[in-house]
């Protein structure tokens, strides 16, 4: 379990990292390394050069930018977990982060690293998809934005252009008095990879109807999916339990779920319906200022 030899470059800024990436086909960027290093130890990854972006101070921050919370790519997951600003502005992210690995991996693991890695079961891509996050990408001296919905292409495959590096993630912040969130996942042990995960965020009106709703499901398909048809069906309703269950079941009826030795496709689909339903009901109760139901 020892990595194959490679060259090591510690860079001072992102453009230096991009330049190195462009000159060396076998080069890879290392951030927290909590996925890349074990892959290298098992020789499933054999980069010829590691470009270490951990010391780029300008890539680690959590700050409000207009109507979004911007998080720098190398911001540690543990920092997000402890951030009062995240709790206040992105309660859904705050709910999900403690589910990422365990404390020792969150201390090193980064926000950008998990998103660029694009594991279908990872929590951060699910939250990014659910909240319509935007990914800020730097490459060839230029900066561009990619919407979360366009970024994930397949399991561990993204639309990140060659030679480019993810610089920041912008999560839109919902403002209002009746915002509620719900998050659930099922795995063999806490801190393990999710078999199924579900996230929901709702904004309710004073009359008890739903003004806005976003629902995402992770670990079930090649990359996290939004339940668009359920969102359309549920907007404007009171999010009654039965209506939620029916809308979610319909949205997940025709999907081709992933299958592995831990969980069959049928299991994943069935649990996805349950967890998405629970996440929405939790979000509704949360928005109304009530404690979560016992499901």
């Amino acid at each position, binding site marked *: 379990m*020892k990595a194959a030899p490679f060259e090591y470059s510690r860079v001072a800024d992102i453009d230096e990292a991009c330049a190195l990436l462009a000159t060396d086909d076998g080069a890879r960027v290392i951030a927290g390394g*909590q996925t890349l290093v074990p892959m290298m130890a098992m020789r499933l990854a054999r980069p010829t050069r590691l470009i270490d972006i951990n010391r780029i101070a300008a890539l680690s921050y959590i700050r409000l930018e207009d109507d979004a919370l911007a998080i720098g790519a190398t911001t540690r997951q543990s920092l997000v977990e402890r951030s009062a600003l995240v709790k206040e502005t992105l309660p859904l992210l705050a709910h999900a982060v403690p589910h990422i690995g365990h404390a020792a991996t969150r201390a*090193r693991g980064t926000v950008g690293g998990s998103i660029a890695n694009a594991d279908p079961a990872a929590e951060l891509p699910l939250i990014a998809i659910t909240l319509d996050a935007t990914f800020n990408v730097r490459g060839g001296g230029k900066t561009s934005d990619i919407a979360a919905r366009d970024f994930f292409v397949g399991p561990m495959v993204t639309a990140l252009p060659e030679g480019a590096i993810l610089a920041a993630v912008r999560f839109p912040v919902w403002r209002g008095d009746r915002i509620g969130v719900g998050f659930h996942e099922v795995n063999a042990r806490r801190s393990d990879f999710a078999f199924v995960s579900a996230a929901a965020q709702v904004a309710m009106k004073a009359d008890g109807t739903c003004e806005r709703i976003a629902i995402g499901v992770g670990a079930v398909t090649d990359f996290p999916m939004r339940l668009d048809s359920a969102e359309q069906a549920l907007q404007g309703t009171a999010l009654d339990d039965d209506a939620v269950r029916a809308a979610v079941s319909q949205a997940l009826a025709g999907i081709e779920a992933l299958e592995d030795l831990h969980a069959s496709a049928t299991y994943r689909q069935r649990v996805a319906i349950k967890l998405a339903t629970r996440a929405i009901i939790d979000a509704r109760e949360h928005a109304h200022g009530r404690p979560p139901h016992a499901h």
Partner: protein
Amino acid sequence: MRIKLDINGTVQEVDTEPRTTLLDCLRDNLNLKGAHAGCEHGVCGACTVLFDGEAVRSCLMFAAQAEGTPIVTIEGVSPGPGELSPIQDAFCETHGMQCGYCTPAMVLVAHALLADNPNPKREDIVDAISGNLCRCTGYAQIIDAIALAAERLRGDNRPAELRS
């Protein structure tokens, strides 16, 4: 490549390959064998060290990446030769170990937890050690050890007349 590592309060220079993990560097270059090589791919937690005060896996980091950041290993937690830290003491008293393979990592995780949260609930302790595998104890005595150490570090075992 030559790198400088800040280990247990002393800066040491080592000659190592980029591919050498912090774990292998500690064990092979610096002869600090307290960080244990278990799974070497981030699952078991036996290689835990404190990196800038936080518990991390030394097998999931290359030594070159650790340059300039203070690192504490199990060899650095006792107050003096032949002495034990209050947390190590508590592990002895509650029999928080059997074979000892996971123990240095468990002690370091407890150090990180109690530095951050002097009054942990049982669930906090369980959560803190959830990334560390123990194949002997069934974890119960480890949890007891950390709870006892927390109580002592808070000063709860001072003589009654000195308690506030």
